[in-house]
């Protein structure tokens, strides 16, 4: 079933067309990757879907509803969560508090009329998520004290705490060591299938390991779309990546 349907998306910055009539469809539970050379429009498309950039043309429908006029917060409440290129955490809050804050908007509202009920429910959610990310030992540490890789893991825990239906990942491996990337791949592969993933990543080994569908952008337009194997062997894509990285 189609979860996200972006059609005819166009974004211009002055005379530069960052996106020019791009279509993108993500289904429930799908792992979809966006690749392309620098300046292809990958992050701009992620911004449009996340709500931080308003396209000049085109529609974005999520779960059958037009979300084009909604900001990032309203989209997050509907189930679109994002992980940024630079881990965005609350540095003076502990790791647990970070997850609690992220969980609050979508935590089960049944206990909301009890004083502190929602926070307690969010705290119950935080423990297992931090454990899943391997952050239990630093749960009481301020997030600002954590290493880059741990902050990335914390951000994933925060995104999952919001119970997303679509997770937008913007170069999640950026700045991570090889070992941390390995850990990240494990974490992302273990994500529940109820969560669809839209991944923007330069590292093609990561893309092929994590995705079941790949869309290639070049100069703001869709160049190709298909399974990782189809993309890997596509002459068009090989030409786009002129050095033959694919």
């Amino acid at each position, binding site marked *: 079933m189609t979860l996200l349907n972006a059609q005819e998306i166009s974004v211009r910055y002055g005379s530069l067309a960052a996106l020019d009539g791009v279509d993108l469809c993500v289904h429930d539970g799908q792992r979809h990757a966006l690749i392309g050379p620098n300046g292809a429009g990958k992050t701009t498309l992620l911004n449009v879907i*996340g709500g931080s950039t308003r396209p000049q043309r085109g529609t974005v429908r999520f779960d059958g509803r037009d979300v084009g006029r909604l*900001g*990032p*917060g*309203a989209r*997050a*409440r509907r189930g679109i*969560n*994002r992980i940024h290129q630079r881990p*965005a*955490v*609350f*540095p*003076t*809050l502990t790791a647990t*508090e*970070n997850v*609690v*804050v*992220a969980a*609050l*908007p*979508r935590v089960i509202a049944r206990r909301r009329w009890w004083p*502190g009920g*929602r*926070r307690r429910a969010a705290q119950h959610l935080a423990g297992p998520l931090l454990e899943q990310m391997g952050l239990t*030992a*630093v749960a*009481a*540490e301020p997030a600002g*004290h954590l*290493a*880059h*890789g*741990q902050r990335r893991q914390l951000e994933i825990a*925060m995104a999952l705490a*919001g119970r997303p239906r679509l997770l937008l990942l913007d170069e999640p491996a950026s700045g991570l*060591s090889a*070992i*941390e990337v390995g*850990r990240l791949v494990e974490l992302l592969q273990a994500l529940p299938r109820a969560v669809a993933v839209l991944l923007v990543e330069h590292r093609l080994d990561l893309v092929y390991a994590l995705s079941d569908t790949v869309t290639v952008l070049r100069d703001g337009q869709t160049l190709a779309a298909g399974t990782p194997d189809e993309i890997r062997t596509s002459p068009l894509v090989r030409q786009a990546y002129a050095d033959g990285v694919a």
Partner: protein
Amino acid sequence: MSGEVIRRARGAVAALVLAGLVVAPWVVDDYTTALLARTLALALVGVSVALLTGVAGLPTLGQTAPYAAGAYACAVVGSRISDVGVVQLVVAAGAGALLAALTVPLVVHARGVIVLMITLAIGELVVTVLGRWRSVTGGTDGLAGIPAVRPFWGLPALASDQARYLYALVVVATLIGVVLVLLRTRAGLVLRAGRDDETRLRASGHRVALHLSGAHIAAGAIAGAAGSLLVVAQQYISPADFGFDTSALLLLGVVIGGTASVGGALVGAALVIAVRDWLFGVLPGYAPLVLGALFVATVYLLPTGVTRARGRLRPPAAPAHQPTAAEQATVPELRR
């Protein structure tokens, strides 16, 4: 020193200060007792400034507006309707909250210096209205002869400076306790998160403007309650009590004490009043100079305030968590 030791030391200092404040009226003269009562009122406004500036991230020069609204509402009620302290306190807090609610659209969508300018304008507008609305406020002459308050129905009126001071102390201690409890709730957590990274908070699905509005109104209620204490303490008010110099002193005090803590706001307010009112007698004409020097020294040497000076005076403590061998092996960047 570990965090636990520091927390205990802070608790001990707070208990000592509270004990000192309780016995103060039997130790100092009536003038100082009355001054202490006024200081408590200002310290409570300082708490509201710290709540907005340090916790919600909205630096303000306009908390004198709800402070004045609360004081005048209390004075009018005290003169014409009821001399019961609880009634006056509720009316004053309500007036402060109402004024803050009316100014929410102006304040919560702005940030940084713009908030300072807007709140400064609101404070000045309120002082102008107080000076011109003679039928209610008495104009620039103010309102005098406000009857002494009785805390509850059936209790005697507070006729002495000592009694009024102790009433103010009980109210301030209670309200600060409420603020401290609220800061530990979900609302306090979300406000602190917003101060760290508002965009991230919004991206998590939180309605940031709603949270800031709540904080603004709560701070207005606290400032309004403080206005009631000012009326109780001096039984006279005029627009001069709520001018720009009071706003500036409050922000100055909160910055000196440390914007991120209630204790800092109290220490800052006490320091500022001490320098302004006590030093006035010792070094006539030099009190503003001393305050300015204190402010510059604090911002330069202790940017987080005197009550949060540890991080500046000592090298930062190592993270409490020591990685296991397995963690060190798998996360080599952890100990960079």
